[in-house]
């Protein structure tokens, strides 16, 4: 898939820094859960999910960062599978205690790095 066919919704500054020159990156300085909700709203507009919203094993609310790939193009109607995935992901957030603000500065860099490697693994598939 060509790079102009998808966009990345993220709150991870590392992703913005790495990809802003080469990819369509939509960066918001919002929470993990708000990123999921932002993506949900885009799905309601007709965009489709290309990467899984619960990528990685670091739990929601533990890591503050999340990057998700969606299609740039919009369908006429919302994609049901995307809708189910994102709704389930948002629901899953409710199961975890919020502790994304407990860490020292160095740890945030690690969280950014992990989110970036998860995204990178999806990009490698997206760009074939």
């Amino acid at each position, binding site marked *: 898939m060509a790079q102009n066919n998808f966009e990345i919704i993220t709150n991870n500054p590392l992703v913005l820094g790495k990809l802003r020159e080469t990819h369509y990156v939509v960066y918001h300085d919002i929470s993990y859960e708000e990123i999921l909700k932002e993506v949900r709203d885009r799905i309601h507009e007709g965009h489709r999910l290309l990467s899984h919203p*619960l990528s990685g094993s670091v739990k929601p609310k533990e890591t503050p960062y999340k990057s998700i790939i969606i299609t740039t193009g919009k369908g006429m109607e919302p994609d049901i599978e995307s809708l189910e995935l994102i709704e389930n992901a948002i629901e899953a957030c409710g199961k975890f205690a919020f502790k994304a603000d407990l860490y020292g500065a160095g740890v945030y860099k690690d969280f950014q790095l992990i989110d970036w490697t998860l995204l990178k693994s999806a990009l490698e598939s997206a760009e074939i």
Partner: protein
Amino acid sequence: MKLEMGYIHIKDIRFSEESRIQDGILYVSEKAVRETALEDEKLKSVSFDIARPGASVRITPVKDVIEPRVKVEGRGGIFPGIISKTDTVGEGKTYALKGMAVVTAGKIVGFQEGVIDMTGPGAEYTPFSKTLNLVMVCGAQEGIEPHEYEKAVRLAGFRVAVYIGELARTLTPDETTVYETYGLKEGIEKYPELPRVAYVQMLQSQGLLHDTYVYGVDAKRIVPTILSPTEIMDGAIVSGNCVSACDKNPTYVHLNNPVVHDLFEQHGKTLNFVCQIITNENVYLADKQRSSDWTAKLCRMLDLDGVIVSQEGFGNPDTDLIMNCKKIEAEGIKTVIITDEYAGRDGKSQSLADADTAADAVITGGNANQVVILPKLDKVIGTLDYITKIAGASEQTLHEDGSLEVELQVITGATNETGFNKLSAR
């Protein structure tokens, strides 16, 4: 393929001038294992310690757990494509040191989890409280990147395990078991009446601290394929992941995969164990689609009657699990899936992030959100510095009396999704 496994029971581990195994006691030369570990320039330091079952010892943050083995007959060597050269394994004769493990620990990222308690309530949940553990805490050179560090620790653990396994090469095993699977036609002729069953193993494959390797190949890059179930006993699959410690498969679990062993238990009696199918758990949705399509296709082409599917990790693998289950069931093949649950601390939330009515036969490894209080133990191997940062731990984690309030999530292997433990939930 036929593999004879020889088991050598280890009763104790002691440091000594010279490494050897004598009368069931493993003597380890600290100098020799240190040199083996530090062959990699990226590692600056390593310290060794011994943790025995029942001792007041906590090991954290755990990266991997490895059982030492040695290949004494047949092609290839332990950990092919990684430590030994690439060659198909799973045939001939292999010895394993039972009752012990090499445990790697060390901080790679600042929120790392993985706790093994050798005594107390935590010990009931981790399978590695029952093994004699040779623990190696690895420190990295200044300035190296986390992914280089991860790889260095991963490989150092394998080298040390192989070094120790070699000590058993000339011993006589205490116990021997033969595992044998057959070619398609051969199997049908041998067991015409028995249902044809395979094991579908899903491998975590998503990025740093989330990877698994098959003969040295990053599992993200595989399409679903077939293994002889004996291959894993020689280390065909190894772990590169430790985030979400409770439901990740350390290398020890791959070597001793319980589904493989329990299917072999019934092989030729109530079922015909045809093969192991491995697939991955990628982030990209089209990959999930392709991998589950292929898995179902392989099951169909092998004319299977039943499969057991195991999962690894939290969240998005629920989607892979349900896709696999749905598609395999749609081929008319009876499917049982093994998972674990995140039902919230109160047990009231939806356990999985995906669901389908086709998944009507589920084995669960328990609710990973369950809270457990770990009392203060006398000795910590590794560091507690990160315990308040690890998954499931919260700011109230460290009580004044030194006890820790954590969710099962942080305990290595607690809710394993290959069915390694007895823990369950209803």
